[in-house]
């Protein structure tokens, strides 16, 4: 399996994402100005501050050449994972529902959160033990998930809410404690916390590795 990690001007977590993805397969960094996805099996849109977060987080990055290819790749069923700024980019691009607003606590916040895996049978969470919480760091200033009531109800009914904050840890004010959602087809997933920062015991938790192992299973399952 080969994972492509996008790199925009202002990305800062693409190398950690690459290190994490390298634990489950081959990797390649994809520059924002290139359209060639180099035959990858999965794409990660990483964290950071693409294009300086000008206008709105993710608003400019969605129009970059590489994103045109990613939108096409996703339309063909390719696996796309958006982390933090990557989640914001995927929402702005219309690949995921909703939007990420400035944190309700008015602060850039960095803390370890425990995520409840609401949907354990997705292509991104199949390796997560049922009922177990994932301990993963979150660090962002604009992570308040927002969608209108009708959309929120539909997301919950259709099993598109994949991970939630524990209510007492929902520091950013996300509606219904939503930390990550998937698209209707199930091949695009975005979340604010950073699984790629939780893959080595040295940094306290390896729970994030489950997300990358799940992607590998999905890709290798599809190749069988």
């Amino acid at each position, binding site marked *: 399996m080969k994972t492509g990690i996008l790199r925009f001007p202002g990305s800062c977590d693409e190398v950690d994402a690459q290190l994490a993805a390298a634990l489950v397969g081959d990797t390649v960094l994809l520059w924002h100005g290139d359209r060639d996805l180099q035959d990858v099996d999965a794409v990660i849109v990483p964290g950071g501050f693409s294009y300086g977060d000008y*206008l*709105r987080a993710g*608003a400019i990055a969605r*129009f970059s050449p590489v994103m045109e290819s990613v939108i096409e790749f996703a339309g063909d069923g390719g696996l796309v994972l958006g982390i933090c700024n990557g989640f914001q980019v995927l929402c*702005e691009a219309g690949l995921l529902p*909703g*939007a990420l*607003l*400035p*944190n*309700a*606590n*008015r602060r850039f916040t960095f803390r370890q959160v425990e995520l409840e895996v609401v949907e354990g049978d997705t292509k991104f969470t199949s390796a997560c033990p049922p009922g177990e919480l994932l301990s993963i760091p979150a660090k962002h200033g604009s992570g*308040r998930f*927002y*969608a*209108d009531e009708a959309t929120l109800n539909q997301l919950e009914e259709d099993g598109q809410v994949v991970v939630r904050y524990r209510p007492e840890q929902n520091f950013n*004010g996300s509606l219904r404690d939503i930390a990550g959602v998937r698209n209707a087809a199930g091949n695009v997933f975005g979340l604010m916390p950073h699984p790629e920062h939780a893959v080595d015991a040295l940094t306290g938790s390896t729970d994030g590795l489950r997300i990358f192992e799940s992607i590998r299973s999905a890709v290798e399952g599809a190749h069988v």
Partner: protein
Amino acid sequence: MRARVLVRPKQGILDPQGVAVERALPALGFKGVSDVRIGRLVELEIENPAELEAISSQLLANPLIEDFEIELLDDAAAA
């Protein structure tokens, strides 16, 4: 043609910037200010003002969370 696009958070959506400003005002001695909402003003020069609606909904504002208003300024008034 000179134009302005005013982008503001939709009604009912919490605006943390507005809250921060509202809370700072009493410290300066200004009482009785409430419901502060902060948006963005985009000023631009445009050849084809008919494109402003698409420009605003596709990039300047995110219609899921923001409303926008377009204001055309005639050249004489802008000069």
